[in-house]
């Protein structure tokens, strides 16, 4: 009985260690995500009125320059970004289901409140090319 209790204690210790390691690594990833290349506007409604820099997604040859743009917001923020494209297509923000046509060489801008939480794709509808991933945290 003593022996089995010891085995069990070891097992629990192992599980806790694995759990903590997983916790550690997942929080590391979150940090990485927020530091590395993520555009994160300041929270609160004032960021919109302060006229902070609006992120622009540049489309060259029908593909986003620098890969799929990561945009992250908190619920209640104002989601603002521009798409500057060298091809004519329709920009579609999934989930929010917003669509705007962009002419070749033109720019369209999006400005809408972040009222749905989750991760959403923005794509060039005609080409089925994902150009941005929009994350809205609660």
């Amino acid at each position, binding site marked *: *009985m003593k022996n089995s209790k010891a085995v069990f204690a070891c097992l629990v210790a192992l599980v806790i260690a694995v759990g903590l390691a997983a*916790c550690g690594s997942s929080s590391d990833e979150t940090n990485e995500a927020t530091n590395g290349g993520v555009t994160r506007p300041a929270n609160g409604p004032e960021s919109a009125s302060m006229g902070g820099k609006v992120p622009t997604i540049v489309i060259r040859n029908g593909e986003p320059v620098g890969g799929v743009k990561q945009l992250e917001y908190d619920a209640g923020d104002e989601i603002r970004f521009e798409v500057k494209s060298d091809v004519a297509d329709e920009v579609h923000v999934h989930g929010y289901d917003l669509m705007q046509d962009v002419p070749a060489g033109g720019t369209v801008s999006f400005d809408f409140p972040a009222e749905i939480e989750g991760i959403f794709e923005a794509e060039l509808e005609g080409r089925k090319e994902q150009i941005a991933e929009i994350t809205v945290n609660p």
Partner: protein
Amino acid sequence: MSFLPFAHALVARQDLPVPAWLFAWGASIVLIVSFFALSVAWRKPRFEEVRWRPLGAGLARGLVSAPAQVLCGLIGVFLLGVALYAGLRGTEAPDRNFALTFLYVTTWLGFPFFSALLGDVFRPFNPWRALSRSAGAGFRAIAGQRPAHLPYPEKLGRWPAAVGLIAVVWLEIVYGSSGGVAVGLDPHAAATAALVYSGYTLAMMALFGTEVWCERGEVFSVYFGMFSQLGCFGVEDGRLGYRRPLAAATHWATLPGSAAVVIASIATTSFDGAQEGAFKSAIESTFNWFADRGVDLTTSLRLTDTIFILLCFAGVSLVYLLGVRGMRTIRGAPSLATLRIGFAHTLIPIALAYLVAHYFSLFVFQEQAQFTYLLSDPLGTAHTDLFGTASGGIDFRLLSATTIWYVQVGALVVGHVLGLTLAHDRALVYWPNYRDASRSQYWMLAVMVAFTCFGLYLLSVSNG
């Protein structure tokens, strides 16, 4: 460059990863619950007896009467027909076509949830069973005798269903996601596959008998039937009755290959949860390895995903078999084969918990589409409005991210507790000595903790 597209054609919104603090809470609760389970454990098996008793006479007979069965069968055949017609003749846009949402969300995800709550609700609606039974009745009327069937090779058991289950998921998330663009499985391909499957199923039912094949090989019957064992409603002797919850599950895994069915369920859900998170970089490097060797991109992606889905099956099997092997070391243990079959049903709650955790939000959101525009405009022509709901849509505000997180973590914790309950109960059957039974359960506890924590981990990894 983004090589790897979204897996689901239908998903306009993905869940946010569970935050680290909730992961920690979830894992802690799992451990505390596990300790608690060991200290309060009962000493005599409680779930081996199903204790079925009929519901009130009218209800018990009415719901399973012949007219009700014919009606349900007709509904099932009609809905399959609508799905096939929409898939073959409707729009190629997966999210605007009735077929894909009906087959892969309403049916494939809906029936596990509702079967666990209400019993084997798929059985009366099973279109292939209904067709095959009518054919059998026709044969009897004309030939004046029962159709003769081949004896089913009992060694095969439920293996055909296990293989079929992986194939069904493979079609959607491996074959379908590999177009190189974010389109996914097109409705035409889904309907074609459903036609092929219908032909195959009817042939097998004719060869081996309808009920024999439903019990062993028919993927949907076996898969949904597995979850229905958890619930408290069941049919016996043509009457609907109430039974002890979880108890029917203890008699489910007696056919060979049953463990493979439940493992396949956990493995395919794990793969789907991990492919854009935990396994993403491994999948990308394998994909690049193939692509660098001149394999075209679509084939590379399908090969890679196929390998990973099989690896998931191997990994989940390995964890389960290690637990079983461990129990063998306890004094008085039955044979390895007995243990392997004997504990398979304890994974059913884990499989259900994985499904809820991964697909709950998708189901809630996509069913809004099912009952609005997909119902009124099944072909997605934009000209049809059968029920006046064609202009409806999905309200993504219905569930907040926080609600989804709590449901996900809650499902895993509850699944863990139910799995432990069944495992402890089964151990008491094999080890009459209570102490040995408890010691054997350190192994199953480790297995359950591994699955639950892996499940939590999958939810907490960013999809990015």
